[in-house]
Structures are given as structure tokens and as C-alpha cells.
């Protein structure tokens, strides 16, 4: 360090009130009390009492979820006849940065497409919920829903298979149409 960089400063002298720090404490408490009044008396708080009150039930401006954009658990969409929409093109599995989608394709029994998935597993513990599978899908078969709380007792339980993903579609299709 150069000599010119060194700057010696005199410590500012404190007044008697400053030396006790009490006025500063009271001033800070004043602001805190003002906020407390706003919360307790006027009800202007941002707290959601979670298990009783859930974000899905709140309007978007007040802490609710915007369902169309939320990136939660995946679902596999069905077409009009209730069949799985996926054509087993492996686009989502290729686009996945976490490599958590495992698909096994097979000859399709239906006339409108060549292939369909007989196995479609997503490891929800490996997934990073980036939404790239949804973006990559050419037939809008895979989508991210607004379900954010998934639990399981074993790791095996958290690998969602095709049936489970289709069930999530049935569960969420009312609130989130395709």
C-alpha cells in the first residue's frame, strides 16, 4: 500500500444522547411498531398459514400461483380419445439437462402414429424443474403442472411411471387445460 493511500481520520465525537444509544434504539423500535400496527390492526401482512391456507386458493396478486406458467410436477397429456399423447420421439429425454426421463418406445397399436411409449419414467428427485422437456415436446404431450408438494417414503416411489403421470393429468386437467 502506498503512503498516499493512508488517510488518518479522527473519530467523530458522540453527543451525550448518542453515547447512551437509547434514542437510536427507540427510533428503530418506532419503525418496528408502525409495521406491527399495520399487520395486527390493518391486516397488511404477507403470511400464508400454509397447511390450512394454500397458495392455489389465493388470487395471483396476493401470493397465489399463476397456474399456466408454474413449473411443478410433470404430467402426460391425453388426447381426445383418452390415449397417451406422447409419440416416443425422445425429444424431452434429449433436452433434459438432468437426464431424468427414461422412455421405452414401441410400435403403436393406433393408426395415427408410428410409435408410442410403453414405459415413460421420470425421476422426480433428479429433475431440476427447468421446463426444457415441455419446451422441446413437438406434440405438447409433456407439461409441468402447478403441483409443488410431492412426498414419498422411498426413492423408488419418486420415480413416476406412465400411469402415475397420466393420473396427474386427470387430477389437474380441470384447473389447467392443455
Amino acid at each position, binding site marked *: *500500500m502506498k503512503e498516499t493511500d493512508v488517510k488518518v481520520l479522527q473519530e467523530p465525537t458522540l453527543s451525550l444522547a448518542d453515547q447512551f444509544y437509547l434514542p437510536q434504539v427507540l427510533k428503530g423500535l418506532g419503525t418496528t411498531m408502525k409495521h406491527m400496527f399495520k399487520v395486527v390492526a390493518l391486516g397488511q401482512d404477507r403470511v400464508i398459514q400454509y397447511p390450512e391456507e394454500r397458495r392455489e386458493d389465493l388470487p*395471483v396478486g396476493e*401470493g397465489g400461483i399463476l397456474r399456466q*406458467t408454474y*413449473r411443478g410436477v410433470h404430467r402426460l397429456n391425453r388426447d381426445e380419445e383418452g390415449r397417451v399423447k406422447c409419440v416416443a420421439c425422445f425429444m424431452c429425454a434429449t433436452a433434459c439437462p438432468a437426464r431424468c426421463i427414461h422412455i421405452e418406445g414401441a410400435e403403436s397399436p393406433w393408426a395415427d402414429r408410428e410409435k408410442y411409449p410403453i414405459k415413460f419414467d421420470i425421476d422426480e428427485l433428479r429433475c431440476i424443474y427447468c421446463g426444457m422437456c415441455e419446451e422441446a415436446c413437438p406434440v405438447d404431450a409433456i407439461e409441468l403442472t402447478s403441483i409443488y408438494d410431492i412426498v414419498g417414503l422411498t426413492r423408488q416411489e419418486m420415480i413416476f411411471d406412465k400411469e402415475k403421470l397420466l393420473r396427474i393429468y386427470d387430477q389437474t386437467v380441470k384447473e389447467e387445460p392443455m
Partner: protein
Amino acid sequence: MRFSTRDQVKRLACRPDDPTIVGVSHSQDQVRTFSLLGGDGWIDEPIEPPGDVESEEMIVNMGPQHPSTHGVLRIELRTDGESVLQATPHLGYLHRCKEKIGENLPYYQFIGYTDRLDYLSAMNNNLAWSMAVEQLAGISVPRRAEFIRVIACELNRIASHLVSFGTYGLDMGAFTPFLYAFREREYILDLFEQMCGARLTLSYINIGGVTWDLPPGFEDKLIEFLDYFEPKIDEYNRLLTWNRIFVKRTAGLGVISKSLAIDYALSGPCIRASGVPLDLRRDRPYSVYPELEFDVIVGRGEAGQLGDCWDRYWVKMAEMKECCRIIRQCVRMMPSGLFRAKLPRNMKVPPGEIYVEAENPRGHLGFYIESAGGPIPQRVKIRGPSFVNLSILPELVRGVLIADIPAIIGSIDIVMGEVDR
């Protein structure tokens, strides 16, 4: 490569049994190399105190569980009573081989991993990576996307500075500002959720633009938030910034002089607090920043000395107002149109190399990419601002009291996800 005679040569994040890592020692004009495996001349020998003073030294490990080290940083302190003689930060608890992962994934897939670098400013990380790839591949970004990007980045800068302000108050013993800071941050996270569906790991800014367009009515919500937020900054200044107790605790502590800041290649609020007006948004403008009007906040040493902890804190507080100014201009100027350039799904990048830096909330985040052609980069190097800023810590804490260390670490404002990466 030459190391100094003090020989602070050590592994950062390699396998402990890796025999290829070699230390170099320059003692008495004799260059000596030694493997870190053998016991030959390894460096952590205690330094003898000068003179014949009788004093007992103690090695104290601060962290990795210590709450004020902001994550998993371990600092090995050599103390004499209450004062610190030497501090050695130990890293690597959060090392996840990010650079190596980058060399094994296609360019667009690494976006999700940049979120987890400095997890408090995911948007800014995404932007830096996207800009690097775009410049390497020669992609031009639609104008609307540029404005959306700037809005997202500045919102994230506010959110990041709010965390910094809240936790700094917490380190100093003021609990309430922390709650207020997180309440305001909640509004921003809600806005992010409407933009892209995630709150922390955003992956929103993408190569060629942004992944989704803004939802309808988003601009009004943005202005509503700014109208709510801007008066709050003044309130926090009254509550914490000018509080006599807080000023006494931080002013004049951990002073970084101008030349020292430049020597250690600091960036972001750390160097601006020392009086160096270095801001890449203005000095090496990218995106639409040249069209926007904003001030670069520089520390003036109002409370104590230029470049002390209080100055570093103050720069962040004042920058939040500038962020609000930038967002307001962006909302006014934002055109309609495309939000993402049309790109082939399996994008090929021509061979070449590039180094791009962007101004993150914590400093310059740089990405060096070397491409040999094809969809996967050959080499990725990340220059993390927290990592570089942390390097000044041993210099700063020499001679201070142990109780002052949280104040100094908090003011440097590191995120361990980026230090270790």
C-alpha cells in the same frame, strides 16, 4: 507461474490423493517443487511470533456451520486472545464440478446449472452465459427480449441486494430488517414466478432471448411493485443505515483502499465502495444498457473511511434505487415483437473462443468458452465474483477482533455456491 515466497500454494478443489498437483516453493533463490502428497515442505507451518513476546496462540475454526459465514465457508483463524493474526479461508464444501458439467452438456442445457452458481441472482447468471454463447455463435437477439432481460436482471439485482441487506443486519444483531427485506423479496419472487414459473432456479433468460413472453398485465404489476418498493428503501435507510449503533459497528472497519481493491481485482459493490467507478453496465455496455440512464454508485466514506464495511453496505442500498429507475425506463421503452430469436433445436456453434463478462449483483461474472465446433463446448471456465472478492479476506481480517469478522464477511457479501461452484 510464480508463487510468492510465503508459498500459499494449495489445492482448491481436487481429489486429495491426486499426485499430479504439485506445489512450488521459491525459497532463497532456489526453486523447489514438491508433491502435496509427500510431507516435503508443506506450507501450513505456524509462523513464529516476532521477538520474545510471551503469548499463546490458538487456532480457531470459524465455520463451516457458523451462521455468519453465509454458507459453508471455513476460516481457519490464528488468534492471539481476541485479535486475529492470520486467517485462511478453506473452500470446497459445495464443489459440484460445474465447469466440467458445462463441458459435457449442450450450450442450452447449461442454463439450468448457471442458476445454481450464485443462486441469489440466477437471472444475471443466465444472461452472462447466454451472451457468451450468442457472441460465440453470432446470434442476434430481438429488441423486446433485450428489454425483458434487463427488467429481469434488475429485479434480481434488487432481490439479491435485499438478501444482502437483510442478512447483514442479522449479522450485526438487527433482526427486524431481515424480515422486512424478505417480505419485499417475496414480491419479486412472485413476479418471477409469473414470468417463468420458478422462484429461485429461474432458467428464464435463454440463448437467443427469453424462454417465455411476459404474461399479460405484467407491466402494471411491475410498476405497482416499484411504487410500493421505492419509499421502503428510505424507510430502511432510516431504520438501519443511519442507525448510530449500526454505523459504530461497521464504519471504519475492513477498509479497502483504492489501490488494494484494484490489486485484488475486486468487482461489483466491493470495488465501487472503494471509490472506483467500475460498472460494466456503463464501461463495457451490453444489452440495452447504453440507452438507459442510471448513475454508478460510488462510496464516499460518509460514515467513516472510504472503502469500509459501511460503504460497501451503502453502495448496495443506493443501487436498489438505481435498479428501480432502470426498470421504469425499460417498461416505458419496451417494444412489442418477438421475445426469442428463431434457433435450430440442435444448435451448432462454430469453433472459436470467447470471454464475456457481465455485471452481476456481486461483481463481474465471466464465462470463458472454448468451442471446437458442434453442440458441446470443449472448455468452460467461470470467473465468479464472490470467489475473487473473497480473496481479499485474509488481508482484511489481519489484526481485527474476532467479533468484527462477521461484519467484514457480510460486507464482502459472498455466495458460496459461486465460490465453490
